[in-house]
């Protein structure tokens, strides 16, 4: 393959209007007379949809789509790893919804869903817990009640839970066989420490051991409430008919005690020095690493502008990082960077991998390339190209019912609206060179960088020590920190 896609999953976020701030700082090597050229990538708008609430506060999004006879349902509850009291409780609660509900056993559910050719899943992330279903339109009266049962009346069968937990604990050890799979969890822990954003939604081997079904029941009762949830339905249906179904299925779902939201904006740690988390994997044949720091929140008005600037640094094949580390130096199969936003903060990360012997060479080249943001800045032609790229690659992200259902769920979870889609092109087009300078100086972490290296410590410990205070852990140790 030419390149992995989505090595770092990047979700776009809402953009409020872009403020054009004239910058007094001149850019070295940037010709002020360059003409900006805008590429027409065609028009793309949000398809028609409806948003309303049931009397109990459940948010509903309906978007009819007729291309194929399918329906996607995506329900989201505003709860995730940030709400964990015991690490992994949100994740295990979500997964345990599938272990039986409203008197139907795990096996009953699986037999029914598979026979319809449908699929159903449940999982928790940092800030949301999701139940997703995908099925043929003709099966709506079998699948929609099932979604309701999972959300509203899960059984939390103890013996099924014990089996799931055992598999998940084994899965944690298995995940660590692939550095790429787990490095992000180490990074979040390094950057956020004890703050909830450092919580891995997977939990750890010891924390999962502590959990029991009573905790899951209590967790479910506290957070899985209609006023704390939304349901997005996209696909082949008639809105009027769907509204009637939803009213009868979800109308009787009642709220309990007021939901306690964690104070996520507060007490985020200050990164006052560079630290290097060296995760020793004794038989590693390459070093996988992340370099970065804090990023931005999902609702940051600069978010779309940052997507454009990051495209130039590490968001596409011809980005500076990929061009230097891969194309020019042949050190790696791919190098990228990206912002991962949460609701009240986020991270920025440069990511790549290289054979153990060239670890130092790759880190130094990544840092040198990253420094170009401040030393040279961006020129007009590169900015124009990045704008065209970001605009041109935007519509396919919102092509399927599944993608649209996810977008609507994100709109609920992060509080943005369809202006994100409808104004996207305009906002990208409006970005000036002066804006890029401001974005770089405001949002990209320039110093006190944080590093996670997963590799063979016997070969790379001396290299690691050159970049900051080293914390060394074994990859098979419990959890994702020291």
């Amino acid at each position, binding site marked *: 393959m030419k390149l992995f896609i989505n090595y770092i999953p990047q979700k776009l976020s809402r953009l409020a209007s872009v403020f054009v701030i004239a910058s007094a700082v001149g850019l070295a090597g940037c010709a002020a007379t360059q003409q900006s050229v805008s590429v027409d990538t065609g028009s*793309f708008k949000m398809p028609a949809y409806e948003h309303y609430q049931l009397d109990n506060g459940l948010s509903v999004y309906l978007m009819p789509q007729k291309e194929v006879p399918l329906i996607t349902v995506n329900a989201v509850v505003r709860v995730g790893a940030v709400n964990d009291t015991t690490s992994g409780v949100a994740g295990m609660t979500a997964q345990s919804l599938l272990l039986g509900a409203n008197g139907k056993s795990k096996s009953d559910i699986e037999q029914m869903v598979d026979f319809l050719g449908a699929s159903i899943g449940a999982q928790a992330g940092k800030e949301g817990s999701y139940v997703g279903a995908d099925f043929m339109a003709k099966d709506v009266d079998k699948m929609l009640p099932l979604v309701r049962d999972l959300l509203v009346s899960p059984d939390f069968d103890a013996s099924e839970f014990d089996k799931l937990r055992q598999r998940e604990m*084994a899965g944690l050890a298995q995940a660590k*066989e692939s550095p790429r799979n787990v490095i992000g969890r180490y990074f979040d822990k390094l950057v956020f420490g004890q703050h909830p954003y450092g919580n891995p939604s997977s939990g750890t081997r010891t924390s999962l051991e502590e959990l029991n079904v009573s905790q899951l029941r209590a967790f479910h009762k506290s957070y899985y409430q209609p006023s704390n949830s939304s349901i997005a339905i996209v696909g082949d249906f008639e809105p009027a008919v769907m509204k009637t179904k939803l009213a009868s299925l979800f109308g009787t779902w009642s709220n309990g005690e007021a939901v306690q939201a964690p104070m996520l904006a507060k007490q985020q740690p200050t990164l006052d020095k560079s630290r290097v988390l060296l995760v020793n994997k004794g*038989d590693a044949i390459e070093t996988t690493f992340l370099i970065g720091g804090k990023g931005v929140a999902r609702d940051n008005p600069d978010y779309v502008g940052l997507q454009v600037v990051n495209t130039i640094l590490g968001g596409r094949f011809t980005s500076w990082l990929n061009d230097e580390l891969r194309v020019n130096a042949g050190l790696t199969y791919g190098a990228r960077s990206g912002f991962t936003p949460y609701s009240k903060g986020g991270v920025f990360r440069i990511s790549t991998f290289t054979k153990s012997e060239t670890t130092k060479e790759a880190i130094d080249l990544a840092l040198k390339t990253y420094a170009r943001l401040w030393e040279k800045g961006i020129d007009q032609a590169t900015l124009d190209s990045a704008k065209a790229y970001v605009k041109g690659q935007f519509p396919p992200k919102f092509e399927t019912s599944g993608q649209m259902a996810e977008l609507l769920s994100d709109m609920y979870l992060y509080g943005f609206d369809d202006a994100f889609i409808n104004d996207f092109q305009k906002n990208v087009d409006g970005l000036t060179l002066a804006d890029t300078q401001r974005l770089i100086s405001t949002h990209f972490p320039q110093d006190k960088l944080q590093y996670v290296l997963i590799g063979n410590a016997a070969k790379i410990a001396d290299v690691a020590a050159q970049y900051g205070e080293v914390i060394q852990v074994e990859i098979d140790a419990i959890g994702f920190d020291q």
Partner: protein
Amino acid sequence: MMRKIIALCMSIGVLFTSAATQATQAEDIKSFTLDNGMKIMVLEDSSIPNANMYLFWKVGSRNEVPGITGISHFFEHMMFNGSKKYGPKMFDRTMEAAGGANNAYTTENITVYTDWFPSNALETMFDLEADRIANLDINEKMVESERGVVASERTTGLENSNWRTLQEEIKGAAFRAHPYSWSVIGHESDIAAWTLDDLVQYHKTYYAPNNGVVVIAGDVKLNEVKALANKYFAPIPAQAPPREVKTVEPLQKGERRVYVQKASVSTPNVMLAYHVPATTSDDYYALDLLSSILTTGNSSRLYQGLVEKQVAIEVETYMPMSFDPNLFYVMGVANPGITALELEKGMIAEINRIAREGVSQHELEKVKNIKLMNFYRAMETINGKANTVGTYELYFGSYDKLFNAPEAYNKVTPEDIQRVAQTYLRRANRTVAVLAATEESDE
């Protein structure tokens, strides 16, 4: 090289009645062939202002020989590294500045180049592709840095994927004559060894218009595509057809075994690989449904028999589409406390149970429904459409076979499933590979 995603796109469904479908119909696909033998298919779809161009070339690792293993994949990389009009780096820079992105993948049988772009940039795509097909200019310096890139791609696959680690070994044991014996990425020493001349010859032989198929899907018009194809692709001369691959793997006459030791593996992984016929075989559909019966969904045989019983934490099957007879893979990851041998026996017991007792009509109905759902999912995007249509054109000889697939799947009976399990999923026809932290001792 891209195992899972492609497998999903190629799962084609069962259309019970034509009235049931709003998805792509045969008449939605327009095709024409240029005088130089290049076949072009067009699917008009204006749901988003984007289009794609998928170029399928009939060259993969099956066309290689020892000494140049992996060259098809390496060549895939070189196709981005400079030609006459667009020198080194300019292919990507030009495409991205026009709003486009690209990728490519190489398999045992084919190499596929994928361009995704706003449909306004269609002509730029034709210009870029024509230039590298007609006038690739292989630059010595780019070859050297690309060796490092591909070596890293190989290493990162082995570092992060147990599947990749096991598959590389199992193929070497299952095939001793046919070029499917080596991995698509090739042997490490070969990646360092091929010459500029090897690469030049490879391009001339395989990247001829008569050896390629193009699919364009999205917000385009047939007439516009025709005009551009005539302008950019028609002038490229045809070449003599490449040498056919005639090697037939000798019949396997007894179980073969492979062991791979890797210290960081937390629990044993077991892979089974059974020889199966090429995709054009009548048994393809029954085998494909059998694969689903074994591992698709939590009600599947291996999930119920192994994961539900805490013997495995993961099970998977995979049968690639293939020009020549290939392998049907079954893989499991042991639960802690379960030995490699216990897992292997458990996997084989479930497979043998199908061979012995067959499957129910209900089970078969279930996987046919799953196939239909997968078909709709694939046809929901312009990329799924392009990839599916091109894949059918290559593996079944014509894209209209896509519309015969429903009937072919529908015809499969429970007896067919039992018969293919008995015929192919036999001990003597199997290679077993085990990956674990410590190899069992002789003591």
